[in-house]
C-alpha cells in the first residue's frame, strides 16, 4: 500500500516531466523544485486558511492545495517564460543545462535564511489521520488520500488531453510545432498551458509527499524528482500513460527493496540501475514506441 501511494506521487511528478518533454523535447529539471515550492506554499498558506476554515479538514486541505496549485502553475509558466523561451531556437543541450541551472538557483535561493532557510520544517497537518484495517492489511488514511487524489487527477488529465480542444492542440504541438502554428494555434500559449498543468500536478505531488514525509526542506524535491524522472523514462518519455505506469513501478520496487533487509540501503541504486537497464535495452521505454509514419 505504501508502495502504491509512493508510486502514485512519482506518477504525478513524472507526468510533468513527460508533458514538457512532449512539447519542447527537453527535461525540465526545475520540475522537482516546483514540487518543493508546492509543499512550501501549503506550509505558508495553511495558517492563513486556518483562520477561515477548520484545519485539519477536507475542505481546508482542498483550499490550501488549490491555492498552492495556482501559485505553482504561475511559477511554472514564469520559469518557462524567463528561462526557456528566450532559448527556444538554441540547441537543446543549452536549454537542458539552463534547466539544471534554474533548478540549482531555486534550491539554493530557497535555502537562504531570508527565504525558507535550509532547516527541515514540520509540515502542518492538513487532514485528520486514522488507520483502517483490511484483513491483515493496515491502511493509513493518508495513503488512501494519495491514491484517490492520483486516480482523480489522472482521469482529469486524460480527459483534458484526449477530449478537449486545448488538449488536442497540446498533442498537435508535440507532434509538429510548425504544422500546429499553421492551424492558427498559438504555440507559446500551449507551451505555457503545458507548464501550468505540469506544475499544478507537481504542487499536488509535493503536498502529498509532504503528508507522508517527516518534514519539508528546500532540497526535498530532489529525490522524488529524480525517481519520477526515471519513471518517465521507464514508461517512455513523452508518453502520458507510460509516465503513470513508470511511477507506480518505481514506487513499488522501491518499497519492496526497502522491505528486504540488506537491500534497503540500495534503494537509490536500484532506481538508477533500472534507468541504466532501460537505456541499454529498451530506450523507448515500456509504452514508448518508435513512431512509424507512412510516406
Amino acid at each position, binding site marked *: 500500500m505504501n508502495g502504491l501511494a509512493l508510486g502514485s506521487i512519482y506518477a504525478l511528478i513524472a507526468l510533468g516531466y513527460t508533458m514538457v518533454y512532449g512539447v519542447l523535447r527537453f527535461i525540465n529539471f526545475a520540475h522537482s523544485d516546483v514540487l518543493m515550492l508546492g509543499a512550501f506554499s501549503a506550509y505558508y498558506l495553511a495558517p492563513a486558511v486556518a483562520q477561515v476554515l477548520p484545519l485539519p479538514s477536507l475542505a481546508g486541505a482542498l483550499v490550501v492545495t488549490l491555492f498552492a496549485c495556482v501559485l505553482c502553475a504561475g511559477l511554472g509558466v514564469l520559469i518557462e517564460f524567463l528561462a526557456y523561451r528566450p532559448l527556444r531556437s538554441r540547441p537543446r543541450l543549452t536549454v537542458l543545462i539552463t534547466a539544471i541551472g534554474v533548478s540549482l538557483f531555486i534550491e539554493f535561493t530557497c535555502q537562504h535564511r531570508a527565504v525558507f532557510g535550509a532547516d527541515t520544517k514540520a509540515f502542518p497537518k492538513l487532514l485528520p489521520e486514522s488507520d483502517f484495517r483490511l484483513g491483515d492489511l493496515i491502511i493509513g488514511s493518508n495513503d488512501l488520500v494519495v491514491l484517490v487524489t492520483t486516480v482523480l487527477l489522472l482521469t482529469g488529465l486524460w480527459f483534458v488531453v484526449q477530449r478537449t480542444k486545448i488538449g488536442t492542440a497540446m498533442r498537435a504541438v508535440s507532434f509538429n510545432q510548425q504544422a500546429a502554428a499553421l492551424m492558427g494555434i498559438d504555440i507559446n500559449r500551449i507551451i505555457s498551458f503545458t507548464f501550468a498543468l505540469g506544475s499544478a500536478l507537481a504542487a499536488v505531488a509535493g503536498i502529498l509527499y509532504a503528508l507522508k514525509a517527516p518534514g519539508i526542506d528546500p532540497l526535498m524535491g530532489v529525490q522524488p524528482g529524480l525517481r519520477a524522472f526515471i519513471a518517465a523514462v521507464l514508461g517512455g518519455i513523452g508518453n502520458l500513460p507510460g509516465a503513470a505506469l513508470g511511477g507506480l513501478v518505481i514506487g513499488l520496487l522501491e518499497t519492496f527493496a526497502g522491505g528486504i533487509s540488506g537491500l534497503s540501503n540500495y534503494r537509490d541504486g536500484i532506481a538508477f540501475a533500472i534507468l541504466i537497464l532501460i537505456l541499454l535495452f529498451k530506450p523507448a521505454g515500456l509504452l514508448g514506441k518508435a513512431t512509424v509514419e507512412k*510516406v
Partner: protein
Amino acid sequence: MTASHQPSTINHHPLLTVRELHVSYGAIKALHGVSLQVPEKSIVTLIGANGAGKSTTLRAISGLIKAQSGAVIYDGVEITHQRPHRIVSRHLCHVPEGRMVFANLTVAENLHMGAYLRNDKAGIAEDIDYIYGIFPRLKERLAQQAGTLSGGEQQMLAISRALMGRPRCLMLDEPSLGIAPMLVRAIFDQIVAINRERGITVLLVEQNANLALAISDYGYVLETGRVILEDTAAALRENPQVREAYLGE
C-alpha cells in the same frame, strides 16, 4: 482543365502581393528578392527545380521563417513580420510540404485542429460534410490515426484540414509529391473545384510543371531564389525555355 479566369494580374486587385523578399537559412541565401502577385480568385503557380526557393517563398509568406527584407501584403495589410497563427487568422492557409498531418491524432481530430480558431459548431459540421463530399475516403477513415493513412490520403487530409480554416487564399506546397498518379488526378481536380466553386484563391507550388500549368491562370518560374520568368500559364506552356527545362521536352 483550362483556365477560365482573366489571366492578367494588371486589372485585378491582388489578394496577395510579395515584394522583393529576401530570406536566408543561416549563411545560405535562399531568396534573392522574389516578387509576385496573386489576384483574387485565381490559381497562380510557382514552378522550378528542387531548391529554387518555392517552398521557402510559401514559408516566408505564412511566417514560418523570417524574411530579412521585403514585404508580404495580404488583403491590403502588411503581414511580413506577423507570427504564423496571426496570419492564419486572416484566412491565409498553408498546406506545407510533406503534408505534416498530425500522425498521432485521428483524422477527425486533424480536421478539428484545422478549425482551431473557429467556434461556430454548425459551420464546422457543415464544412466537414463538404469535405466528405470532395474526399469520401476521409469519411471512411475518420477514427483512424492519420499516421496510418496512405500518402495520397494524407495529402487529402492536409488540404481538408486547411479548408477547415475557411481560407480565402490557400497555399499548397507540392501536393503531388510521392503520391499515386490516380490520387494526384483526384486531388488536382478538387483543387480546381475548390477554386471555382468556393472562390478560394490558390497559390500552388509544384515540381510537376505540366500538372501545375494545366490548372493555373498565371505562373512564375523560380531559379536559385529568383523569379526568372513570369507569364500566363498558357503562354508559359508554349515557352520554349519552359518546355525544355520544366516540361521535359
